[in-house]
């Protein structure tokens, strides 16, 4: 057995990393920092190329023989199709303004997690193959050949980007590394290199309409059981209309709201709200998913998965669509839906049946965010609240990347929280609104085998939460994203265990005074309310 070194000897070991340039450093597939590969069955369902059994730690990734040509052609096609990609490849001046803005870089200290270097992984190959200087000067012009090691590096680092777009806020040229990542992932798909946590949900969505693979009767059963929980807490009986034709509004939310803790409490909040105002709405067992893991796959998959929203709205003959608290669903709706599947001329420009407000901002997509809808109801005095029912909580708000940076939704959720809660505290300025820090697990990286990386990526967010926890006693982190509700819960358990996570409409549901309700003694989680506990 080797002799245990003495502390003196230990102190002499060199712990400094090698000084080789980044191009020479091969990827080390350390457990906890990469995700399992896409399963052949999921690739087949999605009609993606090269379905096979493999794992990133295998030496041989079983790539097609002509994989270089496939990537080269795919790159060329995309440079032609997406002008933004060409601009992002050509424009970066390497000023470094984005370098320390990525949560994965801040948490890991790995230089290839700097957005500028992440994009450079692709750009270096672009230079080699698509620029004259790169072709002639090679490495001197920052160019390099596409090899299997480079491909492995792409896989590693483009699945260490949550496409959160924080870096783009700081880039003087508006270079959006998230879009570079999207393109890199598309290229990797061409040779069958991808992760299961994105593909399997997308495949399930293809066959059942939602990421969890829930069949209609299961979806219905779950909603009914949540209605029973609502009745236990409030005494109010609610029947949720499913696939009802001719309703005013089709309500679509992430399937996690119907199934996963703590999203279910947010869902209970939505239902109480609809009941409170007597909304003529329906849900669909086919458009039973707001999320769209196609966004993390490729354009075609995103488009297909998104199209069912309009298809259902048409089939059911509703006037417009109301969307729940999801993050990336709103990126798709706000930035891509209209171009991909619009215009939805068969729908009406959304108008609140309660207040008469016309949502001009949604005139084209015909889809309204629930916090806009609720904030409008509050503004018009249509909701009755008792905010004391949230007094047992000290709340802060996490701006989820997509609603914040992809649609600029900052005020409505805050306005609602302040109406339904008495204790609200903001996190530091440079960690909220446009500058918000990602949960570290978005874009389909919320899987358990990736835990170390998720904890690194979530460190900046958690540090700000820890600050308000210590300073103001914050114990509830609210947000408007289903991925956040799941992943921030885990993140908090590691970094700030005293803090729980909720959606905004859970707080609304707690505070809403329903006609004919029982006196509330607990919140929607069945936890006793301060000063209102049951005496029995």
């Amino acid at each position, binding site marked *: 057995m080797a002799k245990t070194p003495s502390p003196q000897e*230990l102190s002499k070991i060199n712990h400094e990393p090698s000084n080789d340039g980044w191009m020479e450093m091969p990827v080390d597939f*350390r457990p906890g920092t990469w995700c399992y590969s896409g399963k052949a069955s999921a690739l087949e369902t999605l009609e993606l190329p090269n379905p096979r059994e493999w794992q990133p730690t295998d030496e041989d990734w079983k790539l097609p023989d002509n994989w270089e040509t496939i990537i080269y052609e795919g790159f060329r096609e995309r440079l032609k199709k997406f002008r933004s990609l060409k601009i992002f490849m050509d424009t970066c001046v390497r000023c470094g303004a984005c370098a320390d803005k990525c949560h994965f870089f801040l948490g890991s200290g790995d230089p290839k997690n700097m957005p500028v270097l992440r994009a450079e992984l692709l750009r270096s190959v672009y230079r080699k193959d698509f620029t004259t200087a790169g072709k002639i000067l090679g490495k001197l012009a920052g160019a390099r050949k596409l090899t299997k090691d480079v491909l492995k590096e792409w896989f590693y680092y483009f699945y260490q980007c949550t496409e959160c777009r924080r870096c783009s806020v700081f880039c003087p040229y508006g270079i959006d590394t998230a879009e570079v990542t999207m393109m890199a992932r598309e290229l990797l798909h061409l040779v069958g290199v991808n992760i299961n946590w994105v593909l399997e949900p997308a495949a*399930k969505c293809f066959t059942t309409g939602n990421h969890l693979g829930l069949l209609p009767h299961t979806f219905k059963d779950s909603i009914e059981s949540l209605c029973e929980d609502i009745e236990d807490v409030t005494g109010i009986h609610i029947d949720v209309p499913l696939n009802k034709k001719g309703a005013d509004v089709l309500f679509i939310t992430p399937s996690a709201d119907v199934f996963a803790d703590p999203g279910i409490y947010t869902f209970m909040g939505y239902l109480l709200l609809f009941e409170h105002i007597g909304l003529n709405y329906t849900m669909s067992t086919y458009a039973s998913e707001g999320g769209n893991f196609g966004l993390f796959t490729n354009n075609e998959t995103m488009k297909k998965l998104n199209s069912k929203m309009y298809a259902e709205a048409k089939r059911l003959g509703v006037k417009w669509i109301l969307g729940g608290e999801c993050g990336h669903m709103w990126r798709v709706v706000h930035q891509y839906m209209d171009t991909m599947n619009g215009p939805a001329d068969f729908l009406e420009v959304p108008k609140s049946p309660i207040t008469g407000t016309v949502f001009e901002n949604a005139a084209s997509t015909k889809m309204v965010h629930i916090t806009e809808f609720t904030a409008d109801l509050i503004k018009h005095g249509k909701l009755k609240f008792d905010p004391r029912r949230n007094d047992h909580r000290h709340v802060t708000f996490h701006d989820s990347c997509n609603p914040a940076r992809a649609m600029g939704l900052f005020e409505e959720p805050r306005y609602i929280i302040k109406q339904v809660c008495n204790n609200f505290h903001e996190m530091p300025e*440079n960690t909220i609104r446009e500058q918000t820090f990602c949960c570290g697990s978005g874009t389909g990286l919320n899987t358990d085998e990736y835990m170390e990386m998720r*904890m690194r990526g979530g460190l900046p967010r958690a540090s700000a939460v820890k600050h308000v926890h210590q300073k103001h006693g914050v114990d509830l982190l609210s947000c408007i994203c289903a991925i956040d509700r799941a992943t921030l819960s885990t993140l908090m358990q590691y970094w700030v265990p005293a803090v729980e996570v909720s959606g905004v409409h859970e707080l609304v549901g707690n505070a809403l005074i329903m006609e004919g309700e029982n006196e509330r003694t607990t919140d929607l989680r069945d936890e006793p309310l301060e000063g209102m506990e049951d005496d029995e």
Partner: protein
Amino acid sequence: MKLKSCLKEKRATILERWYQAIIDTYPSESAKHFNNQDPFANPVGFTISDTIGFLYDSLLREEDTEEEIAQALDSMVRIRAVQDFSPSQAVAFVFQLKKVIRAELSGVIDSEKVSEEWGRFEERIDRLALVSFDVYMKCREKIYELRTHEFKSRAWRLLERANMVGVISEESSPNC
């Protein structure tokens, strides 16, 4: 007491060097970005300087309990426990303090008069290293616990048992 007063006098320089030695465990392209001391824009750099300042004073104070020391070490070790370090690399920063002090106070330490005091001080650093290893292990256990917890609590697993899900596969499914 002579050593202690030198250590107090040289506090700023020693901490600066210690900080640098720790920052140097990160790749050089990254290290320079850790000098920003905004706790939110740079949680890693801030936590390191905050923690080592406390630890240094604690070594001189000689009155903190093991629990208090563990608490002080927590934020920094918690970070290193999820970064690209082996267990020994993750806690090696404690031993680096010896190296730094030796370099900074070589004349003082080599003198006969303080050798006993230095020996005792070194022992306290070793104790710190042991505590940091305990903290490290707790963090790693937490990671595994979180993994298992997520895996188990996946709604679809329960549904699978109830035979209620249409498309099911063995090892994975989303939770949103």
